[in-house]
């Protein structure tokens, strides 16, 4: 089933065009990997999906991105509701300078999701458990989140993202600042999370894309060159550029 349907998406930074006519469908409850060399526009596309590009003054987005039969670029779209439904995990772990508990309760608080302290405790516990962090931090929930290790911080950010029960989770190179062990933990986690969430992950690691994703889109110079099932893209790409990139001949 198609979760996100993007049609003719163009993105401009000032006068420079960063994305050209992107048409990409994202499957529900699957992991979609976006790969491509640096500066190819994959992160820009990812940020279109929860309108994070709004934060950048000079950025303009054209075209349609339809999620649940609704164009998120439409004027009537409520960005706050949109971002509640579409969570995001960033390249560098960015926990708030607050306690672990407050990091998780932040989203549910601003969206009014818990009526009582008990309910909030439950949300925090569940989110941390889903992010496979509960066992490590359950005794120090009221210590600062910035005191955790890099991998733990990133899982904290994932827990923060899933605390508001988003339908989609966007991940922008979530493992690029982590060591191989932390990376393996996150990848395992991604596999687990796809039961409840649709996941889109931008990655520079071809091996990671092959390991975690069911679908892959290859971007180059602002264009979506090829997309399809990960198996097909990696084993039998149609486009020569895709093949060159995957086999490591450029990029």
């Amino acid at each position, binding site marked *: 089933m198609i979760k996100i349907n993007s049609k003719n998406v163009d993105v401009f930074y000032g006068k420079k065009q960063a994305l050209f006519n992107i048409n990409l469908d994202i499957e529900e409850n699957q992991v979609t990997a976006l790969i491509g060399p640096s500066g190819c526009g994959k992160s820009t596309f990812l940020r279109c999906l929860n309108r994070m590009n709004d934060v950048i003054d000079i950025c303009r987005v054209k075209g349609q991105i339809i999620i649940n039969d609704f164009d998120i670029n439409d004027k009537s779209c409520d960005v706050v509701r949109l971002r*509640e439904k579409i969570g995001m995990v960033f390249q560098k772990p*960015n926990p708030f*300078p607050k306690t672990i508990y407050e990091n998780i309760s932040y989203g549910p608080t601003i969206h009014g999701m818990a009526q009582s302290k008990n309910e909030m405790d439950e949300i925090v516990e569940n989110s941390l458990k889903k992010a496979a962090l509960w066992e490590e931090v359950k005794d120090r929930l009221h210590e600062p989140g910035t005191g955790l290790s890099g991998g733990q911080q990133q899982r904290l950010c994932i827990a923060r993202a899933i605390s508001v029960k988003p339908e989609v989770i966007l991940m922008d190179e979530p493992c690029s600042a982590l060591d191989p062990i932390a990376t393996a933990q996150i990848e395992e986690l991604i596999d687990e999370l796809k039961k409840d969430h649709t996941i889109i992950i931008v990655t520079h690691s071809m091996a990671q894309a092959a390991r975690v994703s069911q679908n892959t889109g290859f971007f180059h110079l602002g264009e979506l060159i090829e997309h399809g099932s990960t198996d097909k893209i990696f084993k039998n790409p149609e486009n020569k550029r895709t093949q060159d990139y995957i086999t490591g001949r450029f990029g």
Partner: protein
Amino acid sequence: MNLVIFIFIVLLGFTSYYFGRKKAYSIQATNTRLTALPQFYGYYLAIWCAIPAFIIYSLWAIFEPSIVKLIILSDYSNQGYLDDELNLIYEKTKSLSRGQFSGEITTYLETSAEKYLNLRSIAQNSKVVLILAIIIASIVYGYKRISSNNRTREPVEKFLNAVLFTASLAAILTTIGIVFSLIFQTIDFFKVIPLFDFIFGTHWYPAKAFVRDASEPLDPSMYSDTFGAVPIFAGTFFIALIAMCVAIPIGLMSGIYLAEYASTKVRQYAKPLIEILAGIPTVVYGFFAALTVGPFLKDIGTAMGLEVSAESALAAGGVMGIMIIPFISSLSDDVITSVPQSLRDGSYAMGATKSETIKKVIFPAALPGIVGSILLGVSRAVGETMIVVMASGLAANLTFNPLESTSTITAQIVVILIGDQAFGDPKTQAAFALGMTLFLVTLSLNIFALRVVKKYREKYE
């Protein structure tokens, strides 16, 4: 003459830099590897040239006058003169030698003056010779030490370290010096006025202290009810409070606007415009408060049936607050801008609005800097003098009615120290006592605020 020597040493320093570097280049030309870049050899030689010379020069400048004095006065020893009289003789000798003496010239004095001139020229000449000799010796020594296997980088770096250390020492020593200059006068003051009366007394009339004739002995009882500092401390904090009530909300909000909401273009123009406020001299604020705001408030008050003094705490405090706005807004703008964008992104991505993000994420992260800017504002408010003198008057009324006139510590120090004062008089010493108390109060405020910040700050990174 001294200037010539000074310039000479500096010029020689530059020259030796050149020669040191040249020698290093010539060593390099023989394909020998140096232990440092050639300019380090230049600096090395320049330091060798200038530093010993300057040390001798300053030692000479310190000791020459007292040695000359000792030699001159040795002629007068064993004649039963008192120390003060000897000093007078020496001063007379000096002015006679300059040809500026107008009193009775005795033969003794004339011989002394001649001897003085003689000594001075001997000293001057030997100083020049000594310094030249030192310079030449140290340059030769330093020049000989320049070779491929001698280290120059470390001594040069050490020298720089010492220079920087001296610079920071100067600031610390000045602070200590100021504190000490306050302490002794303050102690003298409290010998006459009991500490209790000063801290808890509610009447401040230093003008009363003028009555005393300097020849009469000091009678502490005549100062009772004169130096009670409560009214002016109350006035100081009251006016500062009014000022901060104006400055903190406006400053903080404009800082947040500039950092988070304003477009680049607006910020580019608005920030310098706000900072212009900081460039206005306080005297100008003073007459703005005294001639515009004060009468305006009085008119409004009269129209509303209130009794408003033309010189009111409200006028002074309000204008002072406006003066402090740019400090708070500009500094808090800077600290808010320096909060990493990743924290904002994280918050926006959770669906937080701009104001939620500011309130819950950015503000706590920027808190130490914001408190710092507020502290700076408070110390400006407590230390501000001119606006108070001009707009709130000099009468130390104990009042918490913002529409009446009141006075502050700094304004009272001005009142006390303007015009004729006698040192050693309680009235003058009162200024020192006030200064000392003010210093202690602001110091403990700062320490307290720093502790609060340390406890509540949310550290990012």
